């Protein structure tokens, strides 16, 4: 995985795992690979991966069962909350970016509605 320069690596991996969950390639209740396996897959230090696992657990996105490994939560309500938070944060970033080019939020909304009505490709 290539990492962006302006963000800690552990955050980028958390987002990747969360993205996999939202897209459905990782499912609620799934067992995650071991820290070492994941570290190897992402090409990062095991300490960094350990931190990812700790943070995911603090977010209640995963839970560790003694001796069995780390599992994605099957608490659907929690997953829905996290999905909502993710959407809010992505939309906020998007609006900030548009504003940095001088577009207003209202203009953005108009543009999105046009797309939605099929007026744009």
């Amino acid at each position, binding site marked *: 995985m290539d*990492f962006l*320069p*302006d*963000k*800690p*690596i*552990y955050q980028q991996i958390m987002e990747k795992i969360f993205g996999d969950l939202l897209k459905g390639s990782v499912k609620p209740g799934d067992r995650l690979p071991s820290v*070492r396996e994941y*570290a*190897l897959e*992402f*090409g*990062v*230090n*095991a*300490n*960094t991966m350990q*931190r990812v696992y700790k943070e995911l657990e603090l977010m209640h996105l995963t839970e560790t069962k003694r001796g069995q490994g780390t599992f994605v939560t099957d608490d659907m309500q929690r997953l829905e909350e996290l999905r909502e938070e993710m959407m809010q944060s992505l939309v906020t970033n998007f609006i900030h970016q548009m504003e940095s080019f001088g577009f207003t939020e209202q203009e953005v909304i108009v543009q999105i509605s046009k797309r939605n009505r099929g007026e744009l490709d």
Partner: protein
Amino acid sequence: MIQFNNVTKKYGKKEAVKNITLTLPRGRIIGLVGENGSGKSTLLKIMSGVSLPQYGKITLDGVNVSKKTANHVAYLPDADEIYPYFTVKQLFQYYDSQFPDFNFDKACIVAQFLDIDLNASLKKLSKGNRGRAKIAATLGREVDYYLLDEPLSGLDPMVRQSIIKGFIQFVDTESQTIILSTHELKDVEPILDNIVVLRDGNIIANEPVEAIRELQRIDITTWMTRLFREGEINGNKANS
């Protein structure tokens, strides 16, 4: 933990490292970076007990560094000419005879992971494969500290990546520590916990890599470039 207290090492009149005080924690992967001649190799030699400083004190887990502590350290020097007439397997057997902590099976597993033929002679291997064989022999030792001088230098990107994967796979950062010198910042950044920057025998920075990204929102290559540019500006001011 490796601790330097006011350590100075001179070669003739030249001070290779100057009055260095530094703590390197256990269970981390730590990168030593800086220009050629900045003191990286000297620092590794001092830690490994190969070379003794004229001034100051250096301890490894609280014990003064000496021939005795050298047994807890696997030091890989920055030299390409090792036992050219050995095969890879003979190199491992030689290590096995020299180091009680050497795990022959582990070395073979690392060699397999790095795609090295045990029966190939070192002389006939490409530089990249010889580099990998040396890494396999070094990681074959079950020690607390791996001190690696330029383990990626002169190797192509594929080989560098496979060696880095070898570090992730075969070094247990719960208990083991890697300290490596390198110029290949982009390659090693994802596996580094900490970075120590040397300039003219002095430590000019010692930072956790993720903190640089988190607080300054830049990668370590950009951070290093800025650090050196600022250093030059301050250096010029000091000289004028």
